[in-house]
């Protein structure tokens, strides 16, 4: 355990030193405060918009940003150290591969989690002071929790990439493709399936398919409780046959645990 914490501490401080924490927090805070205030600008109003509009717009932006940031932060975790030779050196230390991986995950995961908490928490606090509505607390808690899980999930996925390739530049390429697939292509494919194939898929079937993408689970978690007028696309259909929030959060947690376990498995079998 001490070894894991030593690694985690180092990774966390790397995140501080590289200004990752500050930049991510700032991006999230600006984005969420901006959306909270000006989210309704499109409909010709100014000032604080409704809670559901805010969450809906936050969720649809976060679903692109968080995976991208998580992948950027972690894609070179292993392949980078392999290239510089420190990975081999670390493995001659009394430090197991599992400990190293978990240490990195805790360190980098904390950066993402903390940035999400502070960044989006800021606008939650702001909104709360303006509206004094308790619904804000619960809605934002759920939003932040799912956002953290989404970030952790993509951190674990980027470890899979980082452990499977032998060059940093390849890892960057794969990270970009992964992001594109999960954040954009998957939804387009679903939509195509819905529109293109008549009676091709039931509502339940669609929801089940969505479980294959952590980004979609995140959307479901946050949009399911809202007025459907704020939601469109494939999601609107899926929401009608929605799973409970508990089930969705469990599915999202699985999307953290499974890639992480797989990464440990790959790391153990990796030749150096």
């Amino acid at each position, binding site marked *: 355990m001490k*070894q894991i914490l*030593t*690694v985690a501490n*180092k990774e966390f401080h*790397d995140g501080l*030193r*590289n200004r990752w924490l500050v930049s991510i927090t700032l991006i999230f805070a600006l984005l969420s405060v901006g959306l909270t205030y000006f989210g309704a600008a499109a409909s010709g109003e100014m000032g604080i918009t409704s809670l559901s509009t805010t969450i809906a717009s936050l969720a649809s932006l976060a679903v692109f940003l968080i995976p991208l940031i998580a992948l950027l932060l972690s894609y070179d975790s292993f392949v980078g150290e392999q290239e*510089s*030779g*420190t990975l*081999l*050196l*670390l*493995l*001659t*230390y*009394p*430090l197991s591969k599992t400990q190293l991986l978990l240490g990195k995950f805790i360190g980098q995961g904390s950066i993402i989690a903390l940035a999400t908490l502070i960044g989006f928490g800021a606008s939650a606090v702001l909104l709360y002071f303006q509206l004094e509505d308790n619904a804000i607390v619960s809605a934002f808690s759920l939003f932040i929790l799912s956002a953290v899980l989404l970030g952790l999930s993509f951190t674990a996925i980027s470890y899979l990439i980082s452990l499977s390739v032998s060059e940093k530049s390849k890892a960057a390429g794969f990270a970009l493709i992964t992001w594109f697939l999960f954040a954009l292509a998957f939804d387009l494919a679903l939509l195509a399936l819905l529109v293109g194939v008549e009676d091709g898929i039931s509502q339940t079937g669609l929801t089940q398919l969505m479980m294959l993408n952590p980004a979609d689970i995140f959307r479901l978690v946050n949009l399911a409780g809202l007025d459907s007028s704020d939601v469109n696309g494939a999601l609107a259909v899926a929401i009608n046959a929605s799973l409970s929030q508990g089930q969705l959060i469990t599915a999202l947690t699985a999307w953290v645990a499974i890639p992480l376990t797989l990464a440990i498995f790959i790391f153990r079998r990796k*030749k*150096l």
Partner: protein
Amino acid sequence: MTTPIVSLTDAGKSYNKLDALQSVTMTLGEGEVLGLFGHNGAGKTTMMKLILGVISPSRGQVAVMGMAPDSKEAWHCRTKVGYLPENVSFYEQLTGLEVLTYFAKLKGFNKKQAIDLLEQVGITHAMKRQVKTYSKGMRQRLGLAQAFIGEPKLLLLDEPTVGLDPIATGDFYRTVDQLKSQGSSVILCSHVLPGVEQHIDRAMILSSGQLLAMGSLAELRHQAALPVEIKAHGLNGAIASHDHLANFISPVCSQTLNVPEAEKISVLKTLLGFDNIEDIHVESANLEQVYQHYLALHAQKQQAKGQS
């Protein structure tokens, strides 16, 4: 000698069909310094990795301090092993002290020991600077400090003197001698070679995964039967006209004699018998020549095998 620190019994490693290391048998005792020589891809690093337990042998056994280094039981032994990899570049954004503290903590030591080690390798003045500002020599010293964490019983150093200036190289060899006198065993891995001779007890020569020769320098020299080089000054044509000595004249230089080890003394005696001799310079084959000899021999054998 009690149980050896390292012992390899017919240990080898293959990747797919490629033999990175063919069966090697060797032992390393306490306080012994072994030089491991060979070109790139000769299997030096593979052998080091086997001893470090980072990879498992495809055949044969490896034991470090009586245990298989890749096993769970050997876990605590890792604190007692120091390793300096070839071409390692430490975390550039961290300061030297931060890097060393991180590695020290992973071995169960603290910042204070890290500072002491930095002092030992002589980069205390730069410890608060980022590693990316370090020169190659300073990086190498940092790597050495890392390998010295926890006064290891076994040190594996891959190309330790690359990038070090002559003074730092001298410092480094002094440290090796000191560690040796404290009972640490050292494996020094190197392409070559000058200066290393006085500091190693035994040498091992590898080429394309094969063990070509192993033994003390004197043994290897004897086995290789390389001639002693004797240069005599002031004799002019006297050597060429001498019946016995004329046989040994080097094809390159008429002042130089290449004499087999066994004939050395008799030749020297003859030379000293000349009245007008001014100076004599005697040089036994050095490590580099021994190394070249074994490599050439190996190449000849390979060629003969290829033809048959």
